[in-house]
């Protein structure tokens, strides 16, 4: 018994169809929709959000065992041993994602009205955003891996289109391609995982796979787990497929906020949480997830400490925070819920900060270099305050949303393995350091720019910072409120809510961790808070106290040098894979033309040459032809006679 008989749920496909229709209209009309395209795009996103909210309300009011609802729509493939339906699974997990995607998505649509106001292709931008919303909703509501893959690739496409939205910039075009190709390496993992599922379980429907998960041989399950992890690494920018995310910041800032912070990059976490049944059965793969998460968490934080580009520093931070989520998803059990919890709070505060960064860029002539900022707090009050809320949330300031969600993960990590736990704590310290650095460099300290009317003896950049329009600040305010309150709001509730999904075997035992009081009684929480304070202090020591920040970065120390170069991710990829591979393609092309075609053309040449030689026998003298003919007749005659005799 579930909710599929209700009207809202039986038409749940509208949730995806609405933004898809919006995207289709906007992209087909092109510049004809210039005047009203952004309104249509926003309305469509809001409509989807309202629909999602209704679904959530209906589910919220229903008894727990009726909440998970599978809505079959039509038969996608029915061939041989395969039966794949196009069906939507709307359960406690996916409905949270629906709210996050459409909610934050709508806010970012509204924000983009202002942010993209001067772009002549704004309606196309909204078309792409709508396409993204539709694909992302399909990703999280699909009831089979195959259908999920439709959304998975759809968001990849939207991400590609939006990263390289300003196509005339070579860097943006290259970044889009890089993101897509690296994601495809991950997709290969998902395809192989699905292939394995088809050959072992015979289906990729979640219900059938998870029901059979316990009977999959452990070796196979481990392989499936690692393949899924590969996919998650690609989509969620985890080591070793992390290199595309920093380049993806070439896209417009709302895109970075929506796709490369709040929603799409967390799809890997979603898939691993969703596939919990498989990972529970394959501890080695789960350990792999934890290790990948931990490494990325530290690597991202490291990158975050040394970037001067505000968006790239935030991107490093995103990698790092997703590392936390992956870590939790790998630990499993109750930590699945922590992963989703952190995913949601991160969705709010990171989107908030990215949009804040966009607001800063808006006021600073699209400059992203924090060394040319400073002292902006006086000029952009709303942006500063909202950004500060995000800041407090991400460093885990008590009672802010990140405090609860990150704390759970750190405690769970200690329970899993002390080394991982210590890494998680160090991550919290570094997070506090680089976020403090970002706050100080951008909003406080000395101004490292001048207003147009001021004297400019030091040849500082000329800027005229101003607060952004209401369409941009209202989303900031809403997101800031969620950055503050989401943790407190969900802390007691989310574990129970998600329990039927994360631990379907024991639907009635709720083992979700600490409440508000326990968060302050656990010594680990106190240690974490101390470390965070140390991180803030370090940031203050280095960048605070009205220090002089040079416009050009001074000669960096080794750690900084490595961080600035993204831990040499690109260099390693290029040296180990890209360059040898491209040389290989050149070799193949040459061999194709030289050897294979050479043999074909050469054999034609040989035959041609032979015939040139043979044609010399054609002398034109009739009598020599006659002699040849006679000789031939004699030979044939002799053969015949000898044949008779033999």
């Amino acid at each position, binding site marked *: 018994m579930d909710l599929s008989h209700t009207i809202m749920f039986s038409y749940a496909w509208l949730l995806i169809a609405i933004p898809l229709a919006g995207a289709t209209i906007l992209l087909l009309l092109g510049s004809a929709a210039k005047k009203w395209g952004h309104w249509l795009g926003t309305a469509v996103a809001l409509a989807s959000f309202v629909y999602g909210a209704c679904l959530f309300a209906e589910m919220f009011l229903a008894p727990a065992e009726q909440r998970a609802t599978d809505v079959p729509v039509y038969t996608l493939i029915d061939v041989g041993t395969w039966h794949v339906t196009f069906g939507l699974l709307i359960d406690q997990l996916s409905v949270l994602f629906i709210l996050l995607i459409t909610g934050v998505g709508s806010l970012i649509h509204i924000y983009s009205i202002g942010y993209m106001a001067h772009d002549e292709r704004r309606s196309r931008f909204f078309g792409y955003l709508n396409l993204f919303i539709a694909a992302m909703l399909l990703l999280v509501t699909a009831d089979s891996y195959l259908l999920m893959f439709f959304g998975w690739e759809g968001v990849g496409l939207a991400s590609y289109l939006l990263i390289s939205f300003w196509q005339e910039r*070579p860097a943006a075009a290259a970044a889009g391609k890089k993101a*897509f190709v690296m994601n495809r390496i991950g997709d290969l993992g998902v395809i192989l995982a699905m292939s394995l599922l088809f050959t072992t379980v015979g289906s990729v429907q979640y219900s059938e796979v998870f029901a059979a998960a316990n*009977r999959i041989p452990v070796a196979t399950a481990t392989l499936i787990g690692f393949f899924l992890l590969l996919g998650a690494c690609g989509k969620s920018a985890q080591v070793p497929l992390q290199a595309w995310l920093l380049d993806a910041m070439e896209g417009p800032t709302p895109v970075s906020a929506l796709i490369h912070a709040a929603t799409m990059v967390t799809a890997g976490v979603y898939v691993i949480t969703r596939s919990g049944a498989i990972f529970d059965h394959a501890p080695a793969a789960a350990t792999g997830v934890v290790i990948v998460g931990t490494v990325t968490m530290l690597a991202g934080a490291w990158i975050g400490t040394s970037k001067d580009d505000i968006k790239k520093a935030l991107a490093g931070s995103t990698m790092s925070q997703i590392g936390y989520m992956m870590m939790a998803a790998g630990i499993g059990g109750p930590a699945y819920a922590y992963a989703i919890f952190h995913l949601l709070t991160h969705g709010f505060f990171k989107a908030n900060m990215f949009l804040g960064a966009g607001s800063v860029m808006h006021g600073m002539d699209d400059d992203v270099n924090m060394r040319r900022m400073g002292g902006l707090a006086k000029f952009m009050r709303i942006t500063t305050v909202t950004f500060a809320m995000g800041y407090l949330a991400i460093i885990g300031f008590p009672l802010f949303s990140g405090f609860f969600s990150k704390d759970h993960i750190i405690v769970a990590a200690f329970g899993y393995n002390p080394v991982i736990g210590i890494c998680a704590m160090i991550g919290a310290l570094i997070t506090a350091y680089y976020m403090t650095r970002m706050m100080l460099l951008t909003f406080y300290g000395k101004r490292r720019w001048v207003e147009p009317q001021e004297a400019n003896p030091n040849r500082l950049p000329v800027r005229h910072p101003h607060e952004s329009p209401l369409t941009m600040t209202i989303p900031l305010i809403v997101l800031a409120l969620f950055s503050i309150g989401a943790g407190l709001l969900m802390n007691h509730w989310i574990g129970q809510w998600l329990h039927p999904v994360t631990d379907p075997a024991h639907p009635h035992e709720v083992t979700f961790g600490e409440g508000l009081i326990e968060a302050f009684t656990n010594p680990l929480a106190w240690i974490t808070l101390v470390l965070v304070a140390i991180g803030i202090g370090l940031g203050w020591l280095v960048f605070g106290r009205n220090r002089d920040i040079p416009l050009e970065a001074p000669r960096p120390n080794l750690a900084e040098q490595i961080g600035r170069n993204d831990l040499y991710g690109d260099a390693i990829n290029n040296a180990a894979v890209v360059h040898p591979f491209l040389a290989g393609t050149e070799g193949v092309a040459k061999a194709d033309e030289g050897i294979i075609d050479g043999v074909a053309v050469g054999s034609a040449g040989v035959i041609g040459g032979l015939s040139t030689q043979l044609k010399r026998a054609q002398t034109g003298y009739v009598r020599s032809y006659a002699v040849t003919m006679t000789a031939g007749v004699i030979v044939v005659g002799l053969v015949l006679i000898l044949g008779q005799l033999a």
Partner: protein
Amino acid sequence: MSFPLLTVLAVLPLFGAAVLLIVPKPMARQVGLVFALATLVLGVVTALLATVGGRDFSETLVWIKTFGAHWALGPVDGLALVMVLATVILVPFLLIAEWNTVDLDDKWSARIYFALVLVTESLALFAFLANDLLLFYVFFEATLIPMYFLIGGFGGKRRGYAAIKFLLFGLGGGLIMLAAVVGAGAMSARQGTLSLLYSDLRLVDFNNGFGMAIFVCFLIAFALKNPMVPFHTWLPDAAEEGTPGSSALLVGVLDKLGTFGMIRVCLELFPDASRQAGQIMVLLGLISMIWGAMAAIAQKNLMRMIAFTSVSHFGFIVIGIFSFTTVSLSGAMFYMFGHAFSTAILFLAAGFLVRRRGTAEIAAYGGVQKVAPMLAAVFLIGGLSSLALPGFSSFVAEFMVIAGSFARHPILAGISSIGVVLSAMYILGTYQKVFTGPVTDQVVNTFGADTRRDLSWRERIAVGPLIALLLFFGFFPQPLLAPIADTAATTMHQVGLADPTPTLKGNN
């Protein structure tokens, strides 16, 4: 005997070509298009009647008694259905796209071009519908003639070279195939009555050395047609020199005769030999796939790049055919359908580019997106379909091939999934070089500074419906997959292999 609908369907474009030579020149193109559209309607009606209506249109008449040859067309099974549909749908749009084609020296008019395309369509339809080995052979070979003139008459500067190369490879394959047809006839005669009907040949026991030799001959002939590495080098030349429409027709329809033959002739008539050759053919398909993709990445000419992507895709189709699962075989057939359109879109879009800029060298472009956004979108969509993005029919097909063959050859199928990454590289790499970045001066000089020289309405009509078709079957593949799956199941039955059962289901 009932109304010979299939003969009428296949003769209609031929008749149209004949009419074209009579009507006055200015009207020729319109008349040609009318015939192509009429064939489209008739083809779709036939397909609907054959699948939904369940009607059997097969015709069988004795043709050359001493050879055991018959004029036998039909039945329209899943395989014939997709190829007939692909052919009849593709041709009118190619004609629309090539509306203003004339040859370089202005000797041959669009009238000849339209007539040749219609003749090709007719011959291809006969080959796809044939139910007799000799009949299939005759039309398989006959398609070379109009195609030779299409390349040699209307192509680029080195079209003579390309046309001769195409013809020689085609004739070479045809010769080998003729020997195989004669051999098959001889074996059939030795084991009873001489008949080249497929249904009779299926009863012949080819399970000996001679039968294996015949099988190999067929395989080589089809590999030349496909084309598979290392017999593929005629294709890039033909694609580079031919007009975009001819190239689309060549790769989209005629080359499919190779993979079509592999299923219809190799698998269905030589089940034992096919089983033995299965693993090797999957390996060869894999090599073709990777080789074609890597060569495509390094190409410097748009048309050659697209040709190599097709070599790669044909590799996938071969993997699907010789993996012997219902799913992979259905995937291969579905791939043949979708590939016709995605390649056609790519070729036509590249053709639109070349017509404006005057060269197919990738390095001559840059930033075209700015001055021709619609053209860029069409190329990107064709490319996305080519790289098998979910939502396009090619994804369903490619995934069915990979995951279907995985059950039989996990390692090889696993390696084949690398194609997913390679295809993204060659499509997006090309898109990046041609369409993105700052607009170069040469592009401004030829396209103009604004979007006035973006796609015309005629060009949009030529590609729009094809895109819609790909998207439709990307989300709703089942209407076509159902008849395909039936045929695949029958073929699997003939090959004598059962689908590998999922390990867990087996234990239950």
